[in-house]
């Protein structure tokens, strides 16, 4: 892993963590209302997957999608303002936390009915295939979505017509509060893909480098015209399902075990020098000592100060996003009507009751 790539991963994961924790705080402060689904714990999936995509590839996400939007390059200010429901939001305050869209960056929406991302992605994949374009679409979904009919219907169509769709399961083991063994007869999501002849793998979703590698490989297959692929990433959300859910149904030992696998800490560990202790050096023997000393300088990674500097950078970005969101005006009802009628162009339409 080269230094620049690792820097981008580290930056995005720290930004993701900071943005989401700040969103939780702003929810508590009363600046964000409604449903707010946060991503801490799952960052390695969005960061690893989206960094493997080309800018021309489309993304379709669920309602837990702020981080996907940020990694895709949507301005943090506009994402935060949308969470606040303000006019400078990426959707002018019409969509909110669960419905982020950005046509320019091919961010095709956060969908808040479980199972909707499948057919939308298939439709985008169909139009890519019909036009013979060298593009793909990435379809995110959770473990709870695989028992919707749309999962099976769409996998069938995607395989039947070899659509360029990469299905990404963010398996955090819970559909809200129901653990996967209580909602699925087959708990290995990737095994279901074989019913539709779709190549699939289950992977550790807590390791961003791992996620990135697997995704790159899968997308290469798709771009080569080999049809859909499915990757299941095992991950964990540190928070409850939404801000309304304390997540108290989960065993403490389980939460603690996953906290030890914090993907953000993992990438920091990967990125930092990690000078061995005197005991480690003594225990390792002479050859190993040489390796431990040579490795970090050979690959030119970061030290703890550099990591702290990135942390400060993302804190500043988030602070700036909140400041903008707070200043942004409330959208007007005219903005709402303009959003509804955005596609009428100059067509002659009749006056309607209620809005002449």
């Amino acid at each position: 892993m080269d230094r620049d790539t690792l820097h981008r991963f580290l930056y995005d994961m720290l930004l993701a963590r900071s943005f989401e924790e700040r969103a939780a705080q702003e929810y508590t402060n009363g600046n964000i209302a409604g449903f707010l689904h946060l991503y801490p714990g799952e960052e390695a999936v969005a960061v690893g997957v989206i960094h493997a995509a080309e800018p021309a590839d489309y993304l379709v996400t669920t309602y837990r999608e702020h981080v996907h939007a940020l990694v895709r390059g949507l301005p943090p200010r506009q994402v935060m303002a949308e969470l606040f429901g303000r006019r400078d939001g990426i959707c002018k305050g019409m969509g909110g936390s669960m419905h982020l869209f950005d046509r320019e960056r091919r961010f095709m929406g956060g969908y808040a009915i479980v199972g909707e991302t499948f057919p939308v992605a298939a439709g985008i994949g169909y139009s890519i295939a019909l036009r013979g374009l060298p593009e793909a679409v990435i379809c995110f979904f959770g473990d709870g979505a695989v028992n919707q009919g749309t999962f099976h219907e769409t996998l069938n169509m995607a395989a039947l017509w070899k659509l360029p769709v990469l299905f990404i399961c963010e398996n955090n083991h819970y559909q809200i509060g129901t653990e996967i063994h209580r909602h699925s007869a087959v708990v290995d999501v990737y095994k279901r893909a074989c019913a539709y002849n779709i190549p699939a793998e289950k992977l550790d979703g807590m390791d961003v480098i791992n996620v990135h590698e697997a995704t790159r490989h899968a997308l290469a297959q798709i771009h080569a015209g080999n049809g859909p692929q499915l990757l299941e990433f095992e991950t964990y959300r540190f928070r409850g399902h939404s801000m309304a859910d304390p997540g108290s149904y989960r065993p403490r030992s389980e939460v603690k075990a996953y906290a030890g696998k914090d993907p953000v800490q993992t990438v920091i560990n990967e990125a930092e020098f990690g000078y061995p202790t005197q005991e480690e050096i003594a225990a390792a023997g002479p050859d190993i000592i040489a390796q431990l000393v040579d490795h970090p300088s050979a690959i030119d990674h970061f030290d703890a100060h550099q990591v702290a500097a990135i942390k400060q950078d993302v804190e500043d970005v988030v602070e700036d996003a909140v400041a903008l969101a707070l200043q942004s005006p409330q959208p007007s009802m005219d903005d709402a009507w303009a959003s509804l009628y955005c596609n009428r162009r100059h067509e002659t339409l009749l006056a309607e009751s209620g809005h002449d």
Partner: protein
Amino acid sequence: MTEQLLLWQALNRALDTEMARDESVFTLGEDIGLYGGSYRVTEGLFAKYGEWRVRDTPISEGSFTGLGVGAALTGMRPVVEIMTINFALLALDAIINMAAKIPFMSGGQFPMPLVIRMPGGVAKQLAAQHSQRLEQTLMNVPGLRIAVPATPQDAWWQLRQAIASDDPVIMLEHELLYFETGEVDFAAEAPPLHQAVIRRAGTDLTLVSYSRMANLATQAAASLAEENIEVEVIDLRSLGPIDWDTCAASLRKTHRLLVVEEDCRFAGAGAEIVATLTERCFFDLDARPARVAALDLPTPFNAELEAASIPRTADIECAARQLLGRDNPA
């Protein structure tokens, strides 16, 4: 340039014309390709345009309608055929939660040039599950546009306009109208997609209707004319939006309103039509508005009961006479 065509042929010509003109138009649905379509609307198109633009789908209404939504987001112009409206119940998430709401929720960023065609209404002894009317459900969804063509001419015009629209348009086609003949003038300029048309001028009462019931209303008006009752028949052509101005102008002349619908009476399309026109034209009315509608009953299989469960021309004539204070035959 006019031709006598069956209504399905007019739709077929419209689809063919638009597919030839614009490569982003494609159609998908069950048995529409190789088989040619349950009501023949897509006949011949598979051979002409190939499997990618005339796509036979698995029986997965929810997902292939959602697939249409996804394709429309990228600027394609999908025409989804739901074999019958009864199966559209499985696709309501795609229609209501997705097609109707995405342009809005995105703050106006995305087009939704999606057409969803669905044959429906009460046909001939198809029993309760296959005799669905859903206009009231779809009318209540902001963001959808609903066309209800009753003639081959309107079918030709409205399907082409629906395909050209960047808003999602539902085409409610009546199963009993597919094999009705009418003259189609291909060169004539189309009225706006949602404009109502006066099918017969009259002075005594305004009869507002749509789809197959507009044809029955016109027949009823012809026989009422023999009793010196002059009925003005308005075919709405669209249920979303509704051309209230044409209705209101007629009521200012006739002062009486009769609405005829095949929808079930309770909370049906007619309820909205009567409510809005009463609000708008209250002081023009000389009598309470009236509705002739289907019974609030799942459609019986038995032929006689089935026929009695929806408006017939005799029912329309009877209601018109009542509204004018005339005696009905015993």
